[in-house]
């Protein structure tokens, strides 16, 4: 919907953070910001429900034997991210709902003339939007841990420290939102607190980086494309982290706020912290997902063009920012003398474009005629590599019993008295094994429903509610009726399935 609105030139035009009063009814008439507000609320709702699914799946549906202390770091990263989502995304839903109510039904949350306050928007927005940076960053930390362990050919160093660092990052991520608002009028004590919290977050990040370095240092490295992208993370994120320490300090931030220095900083953090690991993850898991290995030669070309192009594009922005070039300008007078560095930046951007083009070519060529992947092409240690590439819809014929953190790297044979896989589950009805949260002991056999059309109908009904409410607030009311009907029919048991399930049911 957002992109359709952009193409039709009715898209939102108040910036990605949609600050009031610019986005309020007084300064942004028309439907542009309404698109933004409702589509944001819709996206957040979807994100929240997925977070619940991830938590419930990770806690209750692990293979038996995979205790929390054996859960892969990627899964830990996803669980921590999901918990952060639960507590951060509601803030932006509330903020964007208040915005659209200000715009459509005449409430005054952000209207200072009637007792509202525009800074309320900033608080609610950044209470979400700073943790949001971690929603992008923490899964990338999970990618890093998976790739580094595999290509160092050893288990990750300091697993408990890694898990605790992830959890600490999850908590500290909530103590930072005001550092986006240092230039707004706020109490000085508050600013000092948020400066300290912004500095503190460097600690768990450093713990993870040192554990990775220890893993790499003591491992036998295989320099394949996924590892190259991972190693670039160290260079780029550390630079971004150091400039982060600089802007975490209020006096310096007041100098650099809204300059190109911040643009450089955030790209070093986000591209170094998320995009490089994401490319690494793409190369790493592509064979598992599609059954074909990405071309290595094109991969290396892509990596080096991306790495060099990135630095050529973004490094000069630090200098431009210190020289005073403001953000969010599309041009500037020639006599400012910023021309040469901006030209260098543009050349870097072109290199990145070529790199991404090579990446797309690589994907297409691989899908058409790439090398076929075995079940475990990288000789990795975690469980996803135990099933075929690509995996069947049911993942495993029989769920394995897990005996360690890297089950595929266990050399000693399973003692004859111990089981290797789960048995005794019915295929029809679809029984799945539910395990206990901490120890992953077998707990009960839950019957899953057969597929139906109702989840899809529910999704369509929810979409209709949100799209309708861009245009009339009443849609939020009448739109609930089809949603309620669809989710009720989704829930409503179907007799043949129930009779089948009763055949195998055992009461507790």
């Amino acid at each position, binding site marked *: 919907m957002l992109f359709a609105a952009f193409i039709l030139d009715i898209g939102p035009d108040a910036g990605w953070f949609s600050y009031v009063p610019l986005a309020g009814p007084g300064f942004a008439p028309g439907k542009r910001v309404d698109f933004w507000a409702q589509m944001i609320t819709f996206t957040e709702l979807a994100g929240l429900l997925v977070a619940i699914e991830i938590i419930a799946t990770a806690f209750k549906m692990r293979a038996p034997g995979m205790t929390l202390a054996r859960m892969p770091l990627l899964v830990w990263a996803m669980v921590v991210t999901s918990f952060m989502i639960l507590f951060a995304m509601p803030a932006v839903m509330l903020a964007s709902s208040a915005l659209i109510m200000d715009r459509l039904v005449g409430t005054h949350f952000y209207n200072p003339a009637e007792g509202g306050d525009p800074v309320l928007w900033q608080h609610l927005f950044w209470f979400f939007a700073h943790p949001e940076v971690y929603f992008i960053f923490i899964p990338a930390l999970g990618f890093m841990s998976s790739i580094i362990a595999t290509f160092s050919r050893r288990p990750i160093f300091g697993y408990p420290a890694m898990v605790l660092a992830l959890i600490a990052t999850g908590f500290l991520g909530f103590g930072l939102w005001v550092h986006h608002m240092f230039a707004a009028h706020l109490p000085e004590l508050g600013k000092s607190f948020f400066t300290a919290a912004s500095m503190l977050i460097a600690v768990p990040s450093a713990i993870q980086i040192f554990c990775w370095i220890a893993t790499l240092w003591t491992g036998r490295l295989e320099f394949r494309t996924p590892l190259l992208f991972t190693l670039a993370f160290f260079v780029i994120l550390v630079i971004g982290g150091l400039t982060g320490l600089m802007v975490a300090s209020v006096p310096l931030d007041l100098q650099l706020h809204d300059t190109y220095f911040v643009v450089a900083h955030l790209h070093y953090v986000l591209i170094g912290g998320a995009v490089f690991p994401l490319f690494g993850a793409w190369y790493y898991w592509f064979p598992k997902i599609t059954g074909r290995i990405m071309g290595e030669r094109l991969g290396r070309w892509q990596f080096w063009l991306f790495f060099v192009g990135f630095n050529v594009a973004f490094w000069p922005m630090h200098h431009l920012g210190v020289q005073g070039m403001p953000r969010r300008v599309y041009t500037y007078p020639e006599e400012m003398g910023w021309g040469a560095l901006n030209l260098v930046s543009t050349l870097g951007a072109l290199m990145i474009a070529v790199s991404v083009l090579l990446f797309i070519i690589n994907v297409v060529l691989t899908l058409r005629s790439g090398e076929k992947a075995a079940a475990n092409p990288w000789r990795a240690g975690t469980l996803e590599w135990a099933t075929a590439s690509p995996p069947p819809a049911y993942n495993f014929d029989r769920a394995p019993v897990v005996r360690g953190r890297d089950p595929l790297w266990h050399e000693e044979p399973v003692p004859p008295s111990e089981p290797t*896989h789960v*048995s005794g*589950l019915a295929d029809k009805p679809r029984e799945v094994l539910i395990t206990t949260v901490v120890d992953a002991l077998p707990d009960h056999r839950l019957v899953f429903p057969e597929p139906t059309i109702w989840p899809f109908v529910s999704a369509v009904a929810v979409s209709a509610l949100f799209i309708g409410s861009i245009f009339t607030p009443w849609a939020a009311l009448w739109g609930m009726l089809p949603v309620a009907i669809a989710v009720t029919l989704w829930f409503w*048991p179907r007799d043949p399935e129930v009779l089948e399930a009763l055949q195998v049911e055992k009461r507790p």
Partner: protein
Amino acid sequence: VSRGLDVSGLPSYKYSHHALTWWGMMGMIAIEGTVFALAIVTYFYLWSQADSWPLSAGPPDLLWGTLNVVLLLASIWPNQWTKRAGEDGDERRIRIGLLVCLAFGIVMLAIRAMEFNALNVRWDSNAYGSVVWVLLGLHTLHLATDVFDTGVLAALFLSGKPLEGKRHVDVSENGVYWYFVVYTWVPIYAVIYWLPRLT
């Protein structure tokens, strides 16, 4: 060599934190609880920015809101009775309990309609009006959702269809959600009805 870990003797469902759906519901409660908390924070924030409170409006009338507190707290008893019936798997008691809870819920929704009239301010009068309408509206949405859920469960148990035992888990979890609706009303009631009287 492969040896099976035979799980065919395990039960088909379990209650409370053993159940997959319990975790799903706890996730929803975490989200909705955060929304309530942030809406209350918004109330305090707007108050902190105001010279007088509740701006130019008078405080809400106490009668209907207080009546609803009493009813909601009283509904804990049939709710707990129904929840226990679900955990015992006693379908006769489940049917009775769900119908009693449903009746409570419908009465509370009717009183809730009166509460909106007793706020003495419109949502578009000023920022105070906006935030109390949103607080009350948010809670009403949860009240209505749980009444609807209870109605669906009651219809299911009265339908005479064959039912799996895991539906008893649904009854138990519906009871947990009702506790959430009750316990969130107490602070929201205090904010809406009593804070404007403090100033």
